[in-house]
């Protein structure tokens, strides 16, 4: 089974159980619609970074205080700011589906999330290949809201990426991204290749999460 289908099944709360055929059919048809409607775009900028004396992460004028992010970035000397979105048309598709068929709507939500993650993975791969030429290796991406990395860092992050202009990604007053199917993240780059970088979900402290991957 393709990874994104597996991921969608996980988001739908099947846990360790197998999804039924009707759900799988629905998942596949939702991916087809998303392929057609979604307008994925991304933006990234690479900065030098430093760990300050008082344990903060410094990216130009921006200082980030977060223990979990510091752990993630340990040993890195550069950092990639990253933003990606599936676009407003995906939100319209989700709205439309919510009005006509709720079963399909939840599946569409899950598929859009999986689609977005897959897209981010592809982008990260490309960025990683470029950076490897300079002897830098990427860490797993880390988003505002993960661990104690405050969601409010979304604002300077998006400003430094000029997300609204470059990819049409904006933020509401309450730090929610619009279009809703969007990601902002930082990706550390270190001169040392880690043997097996831990991915986002597994790194989370909430061990009893229904949606946990392992």
């Amino acid at each position, binding site marked *: 089974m393709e990874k994104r289908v597996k991921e969608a099944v996980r988001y739908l709360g099947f846990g360790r159980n197998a999804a039924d055929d009707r759900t799988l059919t629905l998942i596949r048809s939702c991916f087809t619609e998303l392929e057609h409607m979604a307008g994925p775009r991304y933006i990234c900028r690479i900065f030098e970074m430093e760990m300050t004396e008082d344990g903060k992460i410094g990216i130009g004028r921006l200082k980030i205080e977060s223990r979990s992010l510091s752990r993630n970035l340990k040993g890195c000397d550069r950092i990639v700011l990253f933003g990606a979105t599936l676009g407003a048309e995906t939100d319209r598709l989700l709205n439309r589906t919510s009005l006509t068929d*709720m079963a399909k709507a939840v599946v569409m939500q899950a598929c859009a999330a999986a689609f977005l993650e897959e897209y981010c993975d592809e982008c990260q791969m490309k960025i990683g290949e470029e950076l490897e030429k300079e002897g830098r290796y990427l860490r797993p991406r880390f988003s505002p809201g993960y661990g104690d990395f405050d*969601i409010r860092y979304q604002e300077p992050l998006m400003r430094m990426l000029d997300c609204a202009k470059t990819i049409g990604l904006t933020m509401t007053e309450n730090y929610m991204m619009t*279009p809703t199917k969007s990601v902002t993240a930082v990706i550390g780059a270190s001169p040392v290749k880690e043997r097996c970088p831990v991915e986002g979900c597994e790194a989370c402290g909430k061990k009893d999460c229904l949606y946990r991957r392992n």
Partner: protein
Amino acid sequence: MIRERLGKELLYFDGGMGTLLQERGLEPGELPETWNLTHAEEIREIHRSYIEAGSDIILTNTFGANALKFHDDTYSLEQIVTSAVGHVRAAAETAGAGRPIYTALDIGPTGKLLKPMGDLDFETAYEAFKEVMICGEKAGADLIHIETMSDTYELKAAVLAAKENTSLPVFATTIFDERGKLLTGADVPSVIALLEGLRVDALGINCGMGPVQMFPVLEQFLKYSSLPVIVKPNAGLPKQRDGQTYYDVSPEEFAEDLEKIVEMGAAAVGGCCGTTPAHIRAMTERCRACSLIPVTEKEYTVVSSYGRSVFLGEGTKIIGERINPTGKKRFKQALKEHDLDYVLREGIMQQDKGAHILDVNVGLPDIDEPALMREVVQELQSVTNLPLQIDTVDPEAMEGALRIYNGKAMVNSVSGKQESMNTVFPLIRKYGGVVIGLTLDENGIPADAEGRVQIARRIIGEAAKYGIRKKDIVIDALAMTISSEPEGAKVTLETLRRLRDEVGVCTVLGVSNISFGLPSRPTVNAAFYTMAMMNGLSAGIINPASEDMMKSWYAYHALMNLDANCENYIAKYSGAQISEPSGEKKENGMGLQAAIEKGLKEEAHGITERMAVMQAPLDIINSELIPALNSVGDGFEKGTVFLPQLLMSAEAAKSAFAVLKEKMDKSGEVQEKKGKIVLATVKGDIHDIGKNIVKVLLENYSFEVIDLGKDVAPERIVDTVLEQDIRLVGLSALMTTTVVSMEETIRQLRERAPGCLVMVGGAVLNQDYADMIGADFYGKDAMQSVHYAQNVFDE
């Protein structure tokens, strides 16, 4: 005055500002606009070097100067804007160029997404632009230059703000990508339709791409625009080095490409990101010998939405007529109950059936039509990209809708009556639009084609006085029922033909009027539809759910070679035999309970229809529906049934209920509702999937749900509770940042409606959190909410 020179001689803009400021020490994250006050000399210096390089139009350093984007504790917006305008003027003086230098107040986007897809109100965006523009005019700007817009809606807010609050010329340019689209999906014709409708002075493209990449987009601009076109490319595509973006097209290459752009037909050129005085100097020197290609009037009849343009006059277009309460009991009820979901579903259905434009009519006695019209128009634009046709006789509703509509709307309608034209044409002049002209006047509807054609000519003539061109008028030839007007069809067809051949104007018809009072109306309608298309009908207002009408439409386009290789026709009908509904076979003796448990929507519908012939609806509900729902609900809680399956069953049950409800309505039987529940996603929260899941399930269990939607203010929730005497409210929040709104809503409910219970749910909540904010119940999933509601109302 720049208006007199524009389009008659080539005008030069300046180049980039941001890169030059960075070179002079602007730090990442620092607001460039503050430099107007902190580094005045540097700013003037940059302006002066552009003037010396040959620029006629200099943009003020105010790109991000609006209340939504510019937050600075030291300087006010007014200080920023006033000083910015002053710098250009001062630079012009010291440069002593010996030619007029125009100060263009630079207006960039707010960086926010407008409702309904984002959280910024159209009018808030408008106010932010207005503030800066008033300031800029007062400070002495010569024109307003709106640029780098990637959303037509925000663009519209900015242009309206400029037009309504200043007397300055307005230029507007947008940022396209290599696919020829804005970030929000708009194509070139839709941007032009919008901007021409709003009557800007010049329009065009800036930023996003280098000059070469702009050629294809520019070609389209020149093809469709009747206004002078501005082109301001970047110095190539952005590249990155050490966290910095840079551009690498040299001044010489830039100049060469810009020369081509002028030869293609641009009327004003300059540079955007990465361009420098050297680029502009090379450009002005190279283009000096170029002569300007005069702008010509284009004759396309275009309506648009935020992301799509529809051309009338190519084949015939389908205007869906279903969003209209006339003669529709269920639709009237939906409007009265403010059931917008029903209205939106009608829109989605028509798009799925093949409509190109949706007519929107929400007129009912005792209803606040202007408010409802605005709401429906905005909500429809959150689910469909079809252009809308604003259909109302209430001028206030028409203006309100035209104002907030994202695109160039179709307007239904104006007539040959002087009063009607006096009312409607000023609105079209102001907001743009393609207006339907009814061929009737103070003397009624002419019985012959000649009379109708004369009225059409009068409407076109009167519109011209407002600067509204023939291409923005579509004449309704009026279909009169043949049951009382034996010559009715013939007169209408002749009118259509003469309008096409003699007047050269687009036409429209409400087709189904033709058969009023006759049996088997679809037969007559479909035949007449074909005849009308044959006589030049540009757009038919029809029901796209009518198979007969759609068959006529597809067949006509295939027959007239308007459907290459009959592709659309074949795609539509080649599988027709297989998809004919034949539910019985598939159902295979399955019972209703089994169909619902398996989540088979169509089968559940079919089985219920057959059962309802013999059995009372309430019996079916009790013996089949409720047991099915219970068994699926139990499975969900035990972990053998999962969310998608639970909802498939819920949807199947819903389709069965719909059949029974219709039958009960006919017999006057009522299924008692168990109780009324208000559901809302709290203020500031825009995610409503969880709330929608709960809603479907509660409705399945016979609760009446008042769905207030998402981003709902606490006051509105409390008011609804008090007005409707509600005992239970369900609140949803997705993020920690919005749980505070949930807490506030509960606080206000406790204060003003102490008897009301509150259940909460959402991704960030848990029992502790729910206790902390004072909720009565925390539902960890949708079924829990159902059980809680049952307990509350069984007491």
